[in-house]
Structures are given as structure tokens and as C-alpha cells.
């Protein structure tokens, strides 16, 4: 479904990775591993099409994500380091505006169910600025749940979450996988996932040393 072919990424004239290949099918969970600064976030941003790779392509259902943009973005949801929450909007408005960017119309009671699932029941009218950072991340969890995407791209999804929050994220990933969805994620916290999972390691020894590299 998602295919990464000979991807290359350069940052500040350092080769983060090159000739990276992997693919992801329905119902697969993939963890991107690697130490700080090895390009995990850059890789996820390339997969989303936010960052342009120096070489290689990302394919969605056999076509490049640029050619297949509309279908890809309707089926992919990305969560980065930043909370995407506006302090001046209420929880409900925040989640609505996030869903609006995906052109999704969701009934109020569906949103309420999702919010109560992430532990924010009856928080609908609370303004974003009154929330703790963990609660803001929980809104994002509700957003992922409602986004109706097949592919979840999660960059450090456990940031600022407490123990229950982590457990919630884990159960959501497993649920999503069982429903036939797929997940790519990075994390520095241990995530206990009771499901089949693959991992791709970035910045192996051969790359760490390769600060000097060849053209092409």
C-alpha cells in the first residue's frame, strides 16, 4: 500500500540516510528506530509529503504521493511534535477545525464519544489554553480516531502523555491494526504493543560514520 523506494535525505549537508527501502501493507505496524538526530522526524515528514526527499520516491497504492495526492491525504493522518491546538478555541472547535481541514463532517455525538474515549468527556466547551499539555495531546488522539484514515503516521505520539494516556495510545494502535489499518511511528518511550510489529532502523553504524559521502 505504502512503498518507500531508494529514499535519500540530506540535512545541513549531512547524509541522514540513503537508499532506504521498505513497504507497508494493510494491517501492519512499523516502528522507525534510531538515535537523536538520525532523521526519524525527517523521514516521517518525507513520507507525509511535507518534506522533499533528496532522492527516491514515496508511493501510495502504486503511484507517487504527489500524483495520488488527494487519495493519499484522505487516507493518511499525521501527528507531529506540535499540538496543533489553538488556545482560544474550545476543545470541540479545535477538533472540528482539525477535521475541517480533512473536509470531514462529523456529528457532535460522535465527537463526544471519541472525546470520552480519550478521557476528555464533558470537556467540549473548555478553551484550549486551559488544558494541560497531556490533555492537548489527548485531543489529537481523538482526532486520529475520527480522521477515518487507513494510515497513521505518528511522530513521538507518547510525548506528554501520562501512564493511562500511553496505555490508551497502545490500545488505539492495536485496535486500528485489527481493523486493517496501518501505523508508522517513532518513539523514545517504550511502547508495549501486543501485536505483530516490524521495525526499520535508521542511522546504523554504516551511516553514523558516513559524514563524508559520494555524489549520486
Amino acid at each position, binding site marked *: 500500500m505504502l512503498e518507500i523506494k531508494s529514499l535519500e535525505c*540530506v*540535512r*545541513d*549537508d*549531512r*547524509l541522514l540516510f540513503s537508499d532506504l527501502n521498505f513497504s507497508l501493507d494493510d494491517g501492519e505496524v512499523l516502528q522507525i528506530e534510531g538515535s537523536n538526530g538520525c532523521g526519524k522526524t525527517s523521514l516521517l515528514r518525507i513520507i507525509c509529503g511535507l518534506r*522533499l526527499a533528496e532522492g527516491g520516491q514515496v508511493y501510495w497504492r502504486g503511484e507517487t504521493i504527489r500524483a495520488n495526492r488527494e487519495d493519499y491525504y484522505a487516507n493518511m493522518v499525521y501527528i507531529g511534535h506540535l499540538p496543533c491546538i489553538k488556545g482560544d478555541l474550545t476543545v470541540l472547535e479545535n477538533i472540528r477545525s482539525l477535521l475541517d481541514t480533512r473536509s470531514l463532517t462529523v456529528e457532535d455525538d460522535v465527537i463526544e464519544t471519541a472525546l470520552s474515549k480519550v478521557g476528555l468527556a464533558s470537556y467540549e466547551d473548555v478553551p484550549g489554553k486551559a488544558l494541560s499539555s497531556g490533555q492537548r495531546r489527548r485531543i489529537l488522539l481523538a482526532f486520529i480516531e475520527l480522521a477515518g484514515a487507513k494510515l497513521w503516521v505518528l511522530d513521538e505520539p507518547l510525548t506528554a502523555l501520562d501512564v493511562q494516556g500511553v496505555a490508551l495510545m497502545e490500545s488505539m494502535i492495536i485496535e486500528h491494526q485489527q481493523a486493517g489499518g496501518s501505523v508508522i511511528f517513532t518513539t523514545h518511550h517504550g511502547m508495549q504493543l501486543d501485536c505483530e510489529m516490524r521495525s526499520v532502523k535508521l542511522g546504523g553504524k554504516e551511516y553514523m560514520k558516513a*559524514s*563524508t*559521502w*559520494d*555524489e*549520486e
Partner: protein
Amino acid sequence: MFKSIWRWIQRFSSPKYFYEMSAKLIPWFAVSALVIGVYGLYLGLFVAPTDYQQGESYRIIFIHVPAAWMSLFIYMVMAISAGIGIIWQIRLADMVAAASAPIGASFAFLALVTGSLWGKPMWGAYWVWDARLTSELILLFLYFGYMALQSAIDDQRSADKASGLLAIVGVVNIPIIHYSVEWWNTLHQGATVAKFDKPSMHIDMLIPLLLMAVAFKLFYAAIVLIRTRNEALYRDRNRRWVRELIEKL
């Protein structure tokens, strides 16, 4: 067919290949710029007749007008190569754009200063809000904006793309700016001030002028190659070809 052309372009636009090739080109440009420049100066300063209206002061034209032409020409080069860099992801094009900016800015500065030195005997003031001088000043600001944006963004690639886009926006705007400044000028000054660079052009004046313009272009070509080589070295400082080259030095 298309693919092979593309390969070819990629090979010839690789910084390494450029670095080797440009070393051979620079002397040619530099020497011909010098020869044509000296000949142009000789014709301009010794052979060209005195202008019956402006006396000898008109001889500033032989540097002022070519400098003004160059400042505009280099901006075009910058925008076009930045466009190539953005659309086809050719790194060399970005380097050429970045290398051109300081040269273009220096020519714009030169055009402004010589223009005002020419203006003093003509108008009795160093600065008059003449249409051409004003446009030139705005062009200098556009160069400053490009260079400021280029140096403000840390990530080299984003800096190239962002400032490149600004150069393209600038190019779309230059005709509009030029037209509106010209129009503004006719409104506010009327015909009392003599037109700037249209003394009755004698052929003996025209030839040195064109020669100087050619010399300036060749000079730019030499300098932009040198500067692009620097950019290539700096940007590829972690790549093997640069490392090997440096170790040999």
C-alpha cells in the same frame, strides 16, 4: 530520449563536474573582459568626442549605463536559475543564484553612485528623484531582501528555495515597479529636467558603450564562476570529492 537528456543534464550540473570545468573557463572570461574593457575605456575616454550639451561629464555614461544594465541582467539570471533550482531540483542552479546576488548588488550600487555623480553637474544636486535612479534604488533593495533572506534561514536548501522564490516574485514585480515609477516621475517632474541617458548618441559614443557592456558581462561571468565554485566547495564540504580535493591542496 527524454530520460537520457535528463541524465546528461544531471551529470553536467553536478557540482564536482562544474568545479573541474569552470577552472578552465574562468581565465578566458577574465582575459577577454580585461582586453575588451581596456579597449572600450580607450575608445570612451580618448576617442569619443565631447558631448556638445554636457561637455566631458557625459563620459560617466560608459560605466553608469553598463552597470545599470548589468544590475538588471544579473537579477534576471538570478531569478531564472533560482526557478530552475526550484522546479528541477538542480543544486548547481541554486548555487549560481546565490553567487550572483552580491555581484548584482555591487553593480546596482555602482549604477546609483555613478548616476548621482553624473547628476550633480547635470541637475546641481547629487540626488534627484529621477525615474531611473529611483528604480535602481528599488532594485538594490530587492537584492538586499534576497541576500537577507538567504542568510536568515539556517537550512541551506530551504534558504535557497525561499530566496529563489523571492527572486522570482521580484522579477514579476520589476516591470510593474518600473512602469509605476516612470509614470510617477513624469507626473512630478515635468520636462524641466533633462532626460538621463539619451544624449544624442554619436556612433563613436555608442561603440565604447557597447564594448563596456560586453566587458562587464564577461567580468560577471568570470566572477560568478569563481563564486559558484566557492559555493560548491562550501555546500559539499562533507562530500568525498571536496575532501579529496582539499587533501591534495
